[in-house]
């Protein structure tokens, strides 16, 4: 078997602190660590620009610490494994990201992230911090039906938002414009994930849920949330042929559209497999006369060593393409 449950960590209760120390030590040219849990740019943005923050559970590396840097986020507030940070830390993050242009809290829709962002906004109000706003982001078509998009979860497709919004906030747009852009990207983005395996929790040292070898589940969430039920694992082309049509239908993406494509590795899928999957996705998109502007293939938001991937599409216009091509320099997102 290729299983493992043992993780190369020390004591679970020190895990997040130690990993952030290691990460920030390795990338001290890009980030610095404040107060154990705030990862922020080594060089802050120019005054007057909108600050971007995100608070989220840890355990999804390189998300989101790897996306702090020029052309990306200003501050990441890291929670415990798979648990959003509390509101006091969020407020500290908001203060740190404030360059005088206001701060946008980006929320990848999960209960903890949303509730703590709401609490943080209430605290800001109480403390007289204004010019802070929040944007709720989601992309996973399996977690709620069409027409009820705001109930959907945030997953890998939000990396399109992060990249484009990050580039936008290096420019002169204000807080309202930044929020509008985030919503525009979100509303043009759709994702669907699948998984072939479970993974072990670094906190408990136990497998997070059971999954028999040879099974797969379409629609699984970033923490193993159930999707559309188990089925026999398929080959690469068959898997894409199952996942792409509902994605295309949902927006819908249509002939003549130009898209960005992301194949996100949940953990232990190989790049080899992702390339084979991409080959089919590209062929099927070409058949549908949808042209690919750029693509990303790799581990962006992981769920420990889960073997699976998410396929995400984002329809782009000229503004979005230019934002895509703008430089970025996060530890795990580099655009020359």
């Amino acid at each position, binding site marked *: 078997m290729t299983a493992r449950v043992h993780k190369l960590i020390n004591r679970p209760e020190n895990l997040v602190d130690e990993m952030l120390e290691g990460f920030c030590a390795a990338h001290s040219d890009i980030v610095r660590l404040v107060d154990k849990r705030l990862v922020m740019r080594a060089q802050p943005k120019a005054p007057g620009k909108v600050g971007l923050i995100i608070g989220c559970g840890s355990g999804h590396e390189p998300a989101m610490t790897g996306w702090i840097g020029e052309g990306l986020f200003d501050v990441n507030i890291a*929670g*415990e*494994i798979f648990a959003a940070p*509390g509101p006091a830390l969020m407020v500290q993050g908001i203060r740190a990201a404030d360059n005088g242009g206001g701060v946008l809290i980006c929320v990848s829709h999960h209960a903890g992230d949303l*509730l703590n962002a709401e*609490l943080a906004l209430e605290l800001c109000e109480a403390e007289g911090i204004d010019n802070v706003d929040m944007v709720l982001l989601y992309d996973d078509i399996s977690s709620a039906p069409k027409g009820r998009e705001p109930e959907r979860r945030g997953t890998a497709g939000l990396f399109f938002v992060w990249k484009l919004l990050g580039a936008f906030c290096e420019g002169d747009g204000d807080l309202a414009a930044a929020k509008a852009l985030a919503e525009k990207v979100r509303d043009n983005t759709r994702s669907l994930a699948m998984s072939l395996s479970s993974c072990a929790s670094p906190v*408990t040292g136990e497998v997070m849920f059971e999954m028999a070898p040879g099974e797969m589940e379409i629609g699984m969430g970033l*923490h193993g949330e*159930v999707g559309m039920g188990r089925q026999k694992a398929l080959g690469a082309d068959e898997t894409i042929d199952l996942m792409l049509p509902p994605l295309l239908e949902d927006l819908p993406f249509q002939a003549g559209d130009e898209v960005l494509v992301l194949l996100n590795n949940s953990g232990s899928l190989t790049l080899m497999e992702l390339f084979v999957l991409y080959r089919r996705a590209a062929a099927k998109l070409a058949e549908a006369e949808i042209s690919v502007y750029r693509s990303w293939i790799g581990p962006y938001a992981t769920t420990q060593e889960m073997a699976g991937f998410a396929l995400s599409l984002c329809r782009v216009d000229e503004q979005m393409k230019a934002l895509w091509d703008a430089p970025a320099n996060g530890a795990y997102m580099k655009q020359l």
Partner: protein
Amino acid sequence: MSAIGAQDLSALIQAMAERVAAEREALNRLDAALGDGDHGTSISTAFAVAVEEIEALEQPSLNAIWLATAKALMNRMGGASGAIFGTFFLKGVATLRDADRLHKDAMGALLAAGLEGVKARGKAGVGDKTMVDALAPAVAAFGAADEFASAWRAAAAAARTGAESTRDQVARQGRAKFLGERAIGQQDPGATTIALMFEASHLWWKENKQ
């Protein structure tokens, strides 16, 4: 007529803290079946911080004690449950104003405000397999009783019954939501914590104020 003063309130929080700490592993086990197995650790750590923060208060008013508890739960638990348990205390704070003693109805109002806050924040109702299944009947039973002793007793019993009722439910909020039918047969850890909190309060009342 009996009432709860600031010293009583901090003793009450401490009683809750001790009770969840004692049940820490049992709560972790419940959460392992439905979620990520950390509920006992999170809630007991956060309550322990609340007790410390209360002890450190320079002006330990009712208001300050309840707010310190809210902050400890919100900030030390993190995640959705930290926000939910924190909100329960946070939303009561406004009902306290400058009061220095709580009569039974004021205590009921404090709890009721917390429940409303939790429901508004977390969007869970009774039957969704969350702590609301224990909290809602407990708050109702507390409100319906005439005086403290019977109020605590009825609330503790209602919370326990409510917590047990979660066994037959499919979750519609919290991590267990993503388990679908697989959640049936397991008792919700958050609801169990609420039962422990009310049982601890009832016991404390019996031993100290009756």
